[in-house]
């Protein structure tokens, strides 16, 4: 199984050969998508997507939207990710927050929730290094043969040989370099 999906072509091919697979989404990637769904022009003004080493713009939202479109009805969100999204979303400017949360509710209704039992998470030694959210993604992906979408390079480095992963930074890089997709 190809574990490193670098561009939309590869993701598309993977989808055809693994029809039942789902996409399980990490917090930052989901935030980029949700803020973009709320207002694509707000992405580059949103502190959550432009601070702490992030530099997302409307173009990156359009790219992640194309990835989401390749998994209709098959987007998975864990409660751990949702909790982080909720907490981080409070940093969105007050003037935008109500409309943003309404858009978030409308969008999340389209997706599925999946919960890994606490006892399972606690048995995973990598919890100490990566925390509950990251390990919930890896456990769910490993158990169900799903694909993880993340922009966390260290998470990707640690687990891309174990479960199929999309390193969103790499998809962005391929797009910037003009690699066809």
């Amino acid at each position, binding site marked *: 199984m190809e574990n*490193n999906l*670098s561009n939309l072509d590869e993701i598309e091919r993977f989808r055809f050969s693994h029809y039942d697979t789902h996409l399980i989404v990490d917090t930052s990637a989901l935030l980029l998508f949700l803020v973009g769904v709320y207002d694509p022009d707000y992405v580059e003004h949103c502190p959550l997507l432009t601070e702490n*080493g992030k*530099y997302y713009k409307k173009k990156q939202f359009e790219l992640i939207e194309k990835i989401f479109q390749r998994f209709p009805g098959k987007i998975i969100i864990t409660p751990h990710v949702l909790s982080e999204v909720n907490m981080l979303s409070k940093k969105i400017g007050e003037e935008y927050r109500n409309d943003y949360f309404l858009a978030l509710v409308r969008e999340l209704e389209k997706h599925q929730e999946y919960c890994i039992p606490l006892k399972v998470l606690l048995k995973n030694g990598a919890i100490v*290094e*990566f925390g509950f959210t990251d390990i919930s993604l890896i456990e769910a992906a490993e158990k169900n043969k799903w694909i993880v979408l993340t922009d966390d*390079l*260290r*998470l*990707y*480095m*640690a687990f891309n*040989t174990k479960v199929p992963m999309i*390193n969103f*930074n*790499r998809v*962005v*890089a*391929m797009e*910037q*370099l003009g690699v066809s997709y």
Partner: protein
Amino acid sequence: MVLAAFHYLADIIPPTQKITDVRVEAIQPVTKDQKTIWKLVLSYDNVGDFPFDKKREYKQFEVDDTDGRVLEMKPVDGK
């Protein structure tokens, strides 16, 4: 900037060491001292004496946007 980083990497790798499957993992423009710097991450297989003896390594580069000079290279540590 990718080529600059790649050539830099190729130059510093000792002739006895073999690398394969070089990939671009991330590219990001950042502003530093009012200059645009490209931060990019390359990964590659560091192949040992035997084909099965290989390890994926990740290096982060900072490349000057104006002249393509590599300003810094450092390993990316896993958590």
